[in-house]
């Protein structure tokens, strides 16, 4: 417990150093776009594949379970949309990104720590935490909500494709359900969640990488800790945000 509190304190102290004005804004923006490509653009393929597949699966499962003739098949589209926007496209995608992006960040920064590259920056007088971590947090927090939107549309497309291939319900029923009782606020809610989750993933992974010790084994262990802690933090944050925004 004491160790956990010490780590929490160390995390906030690191964030205090990270959130300072960059030494050179030109270098910050350069790194911002490099990280946006690495953390967000490179995540598009995995997010796209999973979203298409999950959208299709939700449609099949919902349609199979809606056997009651009183309930309109239109609800398949409605339930697919609500499942995707409320939970899947933010929380599930964030958990996947915690694995992919989190391990990438913590192992990258961790190996820089172990090979003294961070010490080299510090000796030059460069605020290494600010230079290495701030662009990662900023780019993921700003662009990942767009990734969530993309995931949402691809999930719906996955549902549409499975309907086109199997004819499990009609396309008209599906599109009617998609438009039924649509609340734009849910999109905002999901984007806010994704922004918070992205902050958690990048900052927690950076923290574990930045304080990695013990050679290559230490880098591996920091990477594992980063994924576990950020995944649990995402679930706790999910509860808190849902309570605040939907209750």
């Amino acid at each position, binding site marked *: 417990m004491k160790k956990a509190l010490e780590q929490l304190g160390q995390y906030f102290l690191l964030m205090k150093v990270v959130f300072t004005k960059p*030494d*050179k804004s030109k*270098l910050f923006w350069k790194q911002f776009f490099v990280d946006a490509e690495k953390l967000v653009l490179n995540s598009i393929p995995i997010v796209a594949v999973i979203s298409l597949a999950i959208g299709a699966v939700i449609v099949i499962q919902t349609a199979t379970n809606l056997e009651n003739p009183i309930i309109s098949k239109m609800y398949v589209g409605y339930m697919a949309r609500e499942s995707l926007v409320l939970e899947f496209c933010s929380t599930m995608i964030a958990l996947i990104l915690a694995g992919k992006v989190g391990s990438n960040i913590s192992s990258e920064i961790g*190996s*820089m720590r172990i*090979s*003294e*590259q961070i*010490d*080299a920056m*510090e*000796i*030059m*007088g*460069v605020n290494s935490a600010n230079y290495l971590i701030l662009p990662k947090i900023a780019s993921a927090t700003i662009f990942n909500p767009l990734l969530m939107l993309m995931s949402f549309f691809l999930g719906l497309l996955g549902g549409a494709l499975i309907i086109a291939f199997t004819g499990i319900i009609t396309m008209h029923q599906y599109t009617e359900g998609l438009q039924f009782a649509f609340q734009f606020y849910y999109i905002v809610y999901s984007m806010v969640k994704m922004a918070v989750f992205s902050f958690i993933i990048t900052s927690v992974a950076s923290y574990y990488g930045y304080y990695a010790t013990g050679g290559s084994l230490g880098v591996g262990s920091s990477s594992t800790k980063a994924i576990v802690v950020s995944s649990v933090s995402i679930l706790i944050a999910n509860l808190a945000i849902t309570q605040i925004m939907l209750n």
Partner: protein
Amino acid sequence: MIKVTDLNKHFGEQQVLHNINITYNPGECSLIIGASGSGKTVLLKSLVGLHKIDSGEIWYNNIQFNALSFKDKKEIRKEIGMLFQGSALFDFATVEENIKFPMDFFTNWSNKEKLNRVNFCLERVDLKNVNNLLPSELSGGMQKRVGIARAIALNPKYLFCDEPNSGLDPQTSILIDQLISEITKEYNITTIINTHDMNSVMEIGDHIGFIHKGHLLWEGNMDNVLKSGCKELDNFVFASGMARKLKSTIQ
């Protein structure tokens, strides 16, 4: 000039450095020698501020470095170059970008001026046509040279080298030593080298400090290191089989 007075450093219960008092002068290659685990690297890292010392003072000319805030230390750090044991070149950057890195942060030079400086530094360390290579594409010796080029990119007043010869063959080691020595004298830099390589001691040791179990036991230079009269230093100097044979032959 760098002056250290009454420096002490603990890690937990263990005291790693005991009352270190030493002065390093410009234009000299000052060597910190000692066995592995003697506290050399801790001393070097304390001098550059990577380790916070428990007590004592570290003076860079007339500025007490260890009393400065993080922000004020930055001004001194712009005058420091450091060569790390593993070179510590940035994996994500080419040789040119590595050397440019401190210039990008601390100068307003144009790209052409930076490139000229990069090429000058590379020429100074006898490297050509390596601008666009990544550190992983270089040999160990070349990485050390690029490390030196990056360290001198902003004309430092102080140069710190942590075991510059580790992992290098004897010939390349001598070349790296000579290069550091030449640069030190040419630009009147205060150079502090942490090593346990006796070839370096005999080649470039203008000033030598021997550390044993965290204590500074002996100070001198390459001319009197072999007749120091310090038992622990003798054990260190004549540790290798070749050195012992030479000693017995001479005796």
